[in-house]
């Protein structure tokens, strides 16, 4: 297991290196001149522009800038934001909690709703419960995050005044209320997909011979469903969860923007819109690393659930 983990981690290195290079080059392809953007726009003198370029090493060649950046990145220093003049690492650290809590709540909402619903729909295949759950999941799967977000604000905050429209709370408990609407908006897609996955996995699992063995043992239906079928049904769900978290990471971009949350997503949008390369680069590298690690964790989790994989 340890060797497996080490091997998987080792495999990430070239992927991350190439990805970091792509990100770096992509950021440099943009038509914006960071020095001009930083100067804020006004009869800026060439001297000031030159000073800005020197300060941020923009006058060096791209490869040397890349090496400088990577060297820093390895030590945890992702450079300094052009626009906000802060260390990118510190900015990420400061905004991470919001995004983490948002994603965690979304995952929790999605899975807590999806799994029971999926089981129910599978066990009552063809019933009105199934049809309703399947139809709702289709609608949820097809609703853009940003639409649900603004409709939520319009309905629950502006019209009904039930939920806060924006921002985050001062502590975890308060955040539960503040982040409810954003996380639901964010969770819908994952919920729908997970529900479908659970449902089809459950239907598939219930057809397996070992379920007949379990029936033969005279086990109560509850045990058959929860102990024997569910675990097998969850395997495909686990597989897509890594991918789903990728969707969530993308989704935070839209949700945080809509709900005025100071997380990584809104940071990224702002950075892209203002050509703040160091933030775009650093944050993308961070998200990619996080995404790869999450996928690795998901794979490990898969191994924990499925002994066949663990020992292969």
């Amino acid at each position, binding site marked *: 297991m340890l060797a497996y983990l080490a091997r998987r981690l080792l495999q990430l290195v070239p992927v991350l290196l190439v990805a970091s290079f792509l990100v770096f080059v992509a950021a440099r392809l*943009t*038509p*914006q*001149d960071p020095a*001009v*953007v*930083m*100067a*804020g*726009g*006004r*009869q*800026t*003198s*060439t*001297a*000031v*522009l*030159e*000073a*800005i370029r020197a*300060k941020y090493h923009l006058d060096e060649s791209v490869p040397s800038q890349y090496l400088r950046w990577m060297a820093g990145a390895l030590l945890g220093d992702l450079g300094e934001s052009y*626009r*906000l*003049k*802060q*260390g990118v690492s*510190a*900015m990420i650290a*400061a*905004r991470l909690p*919001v995004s983490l809590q948002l994603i965690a709540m979304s995952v929790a909402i999605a899975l807590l709703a999806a799994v029971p619903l999926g089981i129910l729909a599978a066990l009552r295949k063809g019933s009105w419960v199934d049809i309703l759950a399947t139809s709702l999941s289709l609608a949820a799967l097809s609703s853009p995050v940003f639409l649900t977000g*603004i409709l939520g*604000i*319009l309905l629950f*905050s*502006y019209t009904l*005044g039930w939920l*806060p*429209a*924006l*921002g*985050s709370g001062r502590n975890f408990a308060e955040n539960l209320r503040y982040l409810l609407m954003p996380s639901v908006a964010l969770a819908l897609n994952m919920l729908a997909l997970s529900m479908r996955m659970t449902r089809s996995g459950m239907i598939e699992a219930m057809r397996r011979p070992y379920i007949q063995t379990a029936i033969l043992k005279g086990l109560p239906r509850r045990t058959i469903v929860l102990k024997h079928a569910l675990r097998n049904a969850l395997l495909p769900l686990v597989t897509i969860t890594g991918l789903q978290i990728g969707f969530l990471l993308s989704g935070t971009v839209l949700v945080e*923007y*809509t*709900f*005025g*949350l*100071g*997380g990584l997503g*809104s*940071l990224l949008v*702002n950075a*892209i*819109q*203002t*050509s703040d390369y160091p933030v775009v680069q650093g944050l993308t590298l961070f998200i990619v690393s996080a995404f790869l690690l999450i996928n690795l964790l998901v794979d490990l989790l898969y191994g924990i659930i499925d002994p066949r994989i663990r020992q292969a």
Partner: protein
Amino acid sequence: MRKSGSGRALPAAFALACIVLVATLSSCARAAPGASKGGSLSFAITGDIVALDPAQAYDFTTNPVVNEITEGLLRFSPTGELLPNLAEKWESPDPKTYVYHLRKGVKFQDGSAMGADDVVFSLDRIRDPKTASSLAWMYGSVDRIERTDDSTVRISLKTPDAMFRYALATTAGHVISKAYYEAHASNFGKPEGGLLGTGPFKFASWKPGSEIVVERFDGYWDRDKGPFLDRVVFKIIGEDATRVTGLKTGEIDATIKLPVDLLPVVRSIKGAQLVGVEGLSDDWIAFNTRRKPLDDPQVRKAIITAFNVGAVMDGIVKEAGVAAGNQSVGPALWTYEKAAWETFQNTVEKYAYDPARARELLAKSRGAGGFKAKILTDGDAFRVNVAQALQADLAKLGIQLEIEKVGEAELTTRQFSGKRDYDIVMGGWGADFPDPAANIQPFLHSSGMGEGGSDFAVYSNPKVDALIDQQSRSSDDKERAKLLISALQLAAADAPYIFVDHPKIFYAASEKVGGYTMSPIWYWDSIARGMYLKK
């Protein structure tokens, strides 16, 4: 100053008149009945601040925050006159020398006393290219800043500069504690390092992307004027609808910069107050006068004449601005020689909407028979809408106008890059100082053609350049007005720009907020100093 519709830079605007729209209640007097000391107020800003640093405070989100913490040597009156602040008085013995006498007993928020060393350090720091301050240009003509004694600072200029006097009332004139800066050299202005000044509120916390909190400074020197609130929380909310919703639900007590179409919504919120002030900004469209066929003034005039600005005012701008009459200097900026400016405004050729004349003009121009061109803009809804209106009008003339919508940063880069890679560009601009020249020199002087310059039309007319240079060296406002008007008259014949309107800026608050009157120059000054919450 570059003005952006979506929230980054300031529309610098100065008004003699402040048009006040009051939805329900607006309290101008301080310490009104029912006022109470203390409380926490949440104020929505549209984006995160750049830094807790006056050297970087040059936009609508950073300034309101920084202005609570640090202050300038001078401040502007609501009508644009210079008033004493940290400097008790000042004089200019000759056009190249300014002497400032500092107020005594002013303390920084850590209790240390403010002195001339702090002032010299603060101003020099902004001037230093290494600081890369967006405001450094304000000190472009400064030669030396020196301490004469512990309470006197003397500034010498290389050449006379008619507009230098205003700089010290802006964030470029804000004073920070030298000792504090040196103790926090590595993280000054960042969330960990913070900022220390003499202002009514002291920095408490900054959760990047979410909120910045400032708390009352009890040792504030001007104790009568404030501060009254315990705490101000600046919440960062990019989405306009979210902000207005917050105002309705009570999560937001006050905010600025509301889009025109949401104004009726704000008015419909029970107990909300809404104030709009006429800024001295311009929404402008610049022709690249080096690009064919736009290099022909006849073509430009044809376009202006074909453009139904009146319809744009009625349908798009609505109450959020006043018609510019195709001039960059609006009445609010006639801070001297008002009569002369008024006469000029009434007589100058404006190329008013006249489709028939437009067709004639075009037929006689190098663009006869129509052509294709591109207009560059960012995603700001107002600009996109205006561009589409222009597009529709020009289509009738046989000119195919393509809209190139780019990101805000790209628009900035291309506006200010030396390459001038556009046919027509649309943007916003606001004067930094209460002086007509602030909206003339940047647009028309050929020195702005290069990198970092703001001559968006790539307009070069030696006569215009000479007139502008001449007024800059003069300290006689009457003469300056004459020179500037002459320059504008010459330029009007070349029609390098369309000036659409002078936009307004709106402040909205819940009814319980009192103690603030929005002035046209609000962004160089503290908002929360006098604010209180009614019981």
